[in-house]
């Protein structure tokens, strides 16, 4: 977990631009990946990331310090993604931008099958498993970004893997 005492101090001194600059440097990629795990499209995730940081810019003077800055920022990020993109009912296929070409030792159909099966998982399991691999398999990071206990992240991962394996068996 990142320590943001320096940003807290800047906010106490009402130096919002400096605080915002530090938060942008530290969190833009993480927020982008969180948005990507929810909206599942790199272009839309980038738009969402802009919306999120714009909201953050407007909200910084009202930060009350009750939650850690990162927790507060991730909450803004999740709420922005859910409220904006739920209404749009976007197709939740894994986008081309986020995917590598299939490896040589697996067939295209196997990759396509797993991709399709992933789309059949409940939203939270899909988000957890995507974020788990985006965040270098760190349960701690995923838990923080989705505001879930680490045990809950693990149980979503287990359910997702079990469901995928059972769907592949069927």
């Amino acid at each position: 977990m990142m320590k943001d005492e320096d940003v807290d101090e800047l906010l106490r001194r009402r130096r919002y631009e400096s605080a915002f600059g530090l938060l942008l440097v530290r969190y833009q990629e993480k927020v982008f990946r969180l948005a990507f795990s929810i909206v599942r499209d790199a272009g839309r995730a980038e738009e969402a990331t802009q919306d999120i940081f714009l909201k953050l810019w407007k909200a910084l003077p009202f930060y009350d310090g009750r939650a850690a800055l990162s927790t507060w920022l991730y909450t803004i990020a999740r709420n922005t993604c859910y409220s904006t993109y739920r209404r749009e009912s976007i197709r939740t296929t894994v986008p081309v931008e986020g995917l590598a070409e299939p490896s040589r030792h697996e067939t295209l159909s196997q990759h396509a099958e797993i991709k399709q099966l992933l789309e059949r998982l409940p939203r939270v399991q899909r988000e957890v498993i995507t974020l788990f691999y985006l965040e270098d398999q760190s349960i701690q990071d995923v838990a923080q970004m989705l505001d879930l206990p680490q045990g809950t992240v693990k149980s979503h991962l287990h359910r997702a893997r079990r469901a995928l394996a059972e769907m592949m068996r069927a």
Partner: protein
Amino acid sequence: MDCRDAQQKLLESFESTLPADGKRELERHLAACPNCAEFGELLNKIDVHFKEEIIAPRLSPGFRAALQARIDRQPHRLWTHWLPDAAYLAGSGAALLCCVLLLPFSASSVVWVGTVIAAAGYSLQTLLVSSLEEL
């Protein structure tokens, strides 16, 4: 170890390393149970797939500039952080000027006393605001 335990251990093995004795017990079970062995192979295949396929996309090079442009288009805050201090200073100056003009004392005494009162008031106000922010 039964199938349920074995499958649980298989799922856990993707997040943390199993202890040596647990691993040996799991391997023995997998050697004897084709059902769990198949489950393990599928989990491995899924893990390899995600490791290869879920690649973090990068923000475009124009991200910062686009965000800055959107921030610049925002209307400026009417209540900037220094406005209360400026208002206090202006109010104190106006009150001091009125006192100098209206009170039957020498201007230098009025300015001196007024400045002390204004400074004390400002300090008290700052103290009060920061203690409220601490709550």
